[in-house]
């Protein structure tokens, strides 16, 4: 079967635009609601779905994703149910790449071999496992690659040029660049620095580079998307769900619609990213030039 991630980036290259990568928490606040959110994502313009696997101790996540994970666990989500969610989603969508993101322990307890087989059968395209650096590749990365799943590695501002080749060695699908040292949901501060970091990684690999951590608005998506092959949005989506939950945990509006509204705006942002960058460079070259025509 064709690799959905490679096929997507091939298509986006011809469209000259970056991917919108959307993270949501599987099972937040319950299975059915969460599945409706998942189905809404590609319809609203998401190109890749990151399906969050809840974990009791998410050490790299900020308060929003921590709370989402606890809501999901309270709602009865398990790794088995998350795989079931992916399988159900696949029945209606065979094109959108789905990447599972989370921490290693639930997979370790599920059993690595069984997990890789079940994930593949459920139509999963790749894995992002926060607490498995290249030093631990034998745990899951190598079995996953062997089983036909992409293993998408995080590169960070602390990953220097000496270390990058090690990080990239067994990476496939795309590289996830973490825009800052910090936890998910922190404020994004230095966009030009992110652009330089993306260029640095691209000098080491032909893989697409997607940037995440701290991207919340369409404007940020537009700015980051000028340099990156993809823009990852997570906390903002998780917050869109949280915002329509009452104090009793019941929904006060449709979470799928709330997420779709946000994602439509972000999708517009990434679609304008390259145009905005071209415009900026055109302005830079023609400081006295007249204003180019409005794009929208």
């Amino acid at each position, binding site marked *: 079967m064709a690799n959905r991630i490679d096929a997507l980036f091939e298509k986006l290259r011809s469209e000259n635009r970056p991917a919108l990568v959307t993270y949501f928490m599987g099972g937040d606040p319950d299975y059915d609601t969460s599945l409706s959110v998942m189905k809404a994502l590609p319809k609203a313009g998401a190109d890749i779905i990151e399906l969050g696997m809840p974990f*009791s101790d998410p050490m790299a996540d*900020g308060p929003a994703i921590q709370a989402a994970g606890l809501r999901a666990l309270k709602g009865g989500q398990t790794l088995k149910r998350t795989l079931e969610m992916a399988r159900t989603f696949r029945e209606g969508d065979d094109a959108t790449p789905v990447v599972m993101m989370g*921490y290693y*322990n639930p997979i370790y*307890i599920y059993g690595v071999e069984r997990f890789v087989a079940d994930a593949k059968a459920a139509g999963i395209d790749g894995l992002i496992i926060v*607490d498995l650096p290249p030093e*631990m590749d034998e745990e899951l990365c190598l079995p996953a690659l062997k089983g036909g799943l992409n293993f998408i590695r995080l590169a960070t501002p602390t990953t220097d040029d000496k270390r990058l080749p090690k990080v990239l060695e067994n990476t496939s699908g795309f590289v996830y660049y973490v825009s800052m040292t910090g936890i998910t949901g922190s404020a994004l501060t230095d966009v030009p620095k992110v652009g330089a970091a993306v260029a640095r990684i691209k000098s080491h690999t032909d893989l697409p580079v997607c940037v995440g951590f701290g991207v919340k608005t369409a404007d940020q998506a537009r700015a980051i998307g000028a340099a990156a092959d993809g823009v990852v949005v997570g906390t903002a989506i998780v917050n869109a769900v949280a915002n329509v939950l009452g104090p009793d945990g019941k929904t006060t509006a449709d979470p799928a619609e709330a997420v779709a509204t946000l994602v439509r705006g972000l999708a517009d942002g990434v679609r304008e990213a390259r145009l905005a960058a071209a415009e900026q460079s055109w302005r830079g070259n023609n400081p006295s030039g007249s204003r180019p025509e409005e794009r929208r």
Partner: protein
Amino acid sequence: MNQPAEPNSFRTGPDEQGMFGIFGGRFVAETLMPLILDLEAHWDAAKKDPAFKAELDQLGKHYTGRPSPLYFAERLTEHLGGAKIYFKRDELNHTGSHKINNCLGQILLARRMGKTRIIAETGAGQHGVASATVAARFGLPCVVYMGATDVERQAPNVFRMKLLGAEVKPVSSGHGTLKDAMNEALRDWVTNVDDTYYLIGTAAGPHPYPELVRDFQSVIGQEAKEQMLEAEGRLPDMLVAAVGGGSNAIGLFHPFLDDRGVQMVGVEAGGRGLEGDEHCASLTAGAPGVLHGNRTYLLQNEDGQIKDGHSISAGLDYPGIGPEHSWLKESGRVEYVPIMDTEALEAFQLLTRLEGIIPALEPAHALAEVIKRAPKMGRDKVIVMNLCGRGDKDIFSVAKHLGMEA
């Protein structure tokens, strides 16, 4: 002749990957990976540097008050009517527990690495106090993460940390105990990678922490060995120590691991009993898993979600254990047993009245196991128990449990 193959030595771990058998390792986010590799390089250099050891020994002697005495508990021995009981009295250290041994070692490492800010997690507050103490001594700012539940039940230590100039940040996620404090400390570290040194308080976490904490705490066992040879002219028959994360136990055990005649018992928090979830006996009732940078025995459900656990003792209230203990359990070299809250409380009172020593609730667990074992052993046998902390911090919560006014 069908016994499983035993290693030639139990003291060679961890291997180059930071593993003790299948336990240990480096399960951390990429952001932290370069930092722990840097720590490992500095630690390897420090180990070989005589000046590092000399400074640590000097501080141990004049600041901590080492060596700590090996005390023959004559009245307790008489009361129990069996083996002779000795206490390794690390509760007499500056700051009131064994934690200072590790904190002094690590702050010297932090200084070598040019770090200017210290963060730490704490359960009972003993490690928090020791961290705040060495930070004050070396003039570095210090932030201590502490579960909100623990902030409440260990109030004297919270005040002590604040007096020492540390900032105590209560953590209310989860049950608000040590596990949650460690998560929050890791979140701080991943955010402040340039200037911050994470001073882990127990022999757990990603490699090289389990090794370096063990080595800094091994002074306990090294001294105990010499002192025992002086007092009895031979090695003890049994060592007993409480295990939460397991740093005081590994510190006592490690120098004796290859002395096959010395039996070792690690005592876990049995809480309100092992039937439900209200205990912290990860080795007795848990299963191997991955948390906080290492693979080790954990309390978890069938989906791999970590449980919160319970213990009367904040210092033992952790659902994991240092990876070397997991390995020592599986290799059969050390036996691990649970002690209930109520048994620890009884031991706490007995020691206070018989020997005039108020133990912390953590070593009170070890003592409860000694109380069970000593009477069954001959009078010619010798037990060394690590009295790793003093109980001043616990008197208010003990009073509450006993229905007394403090």
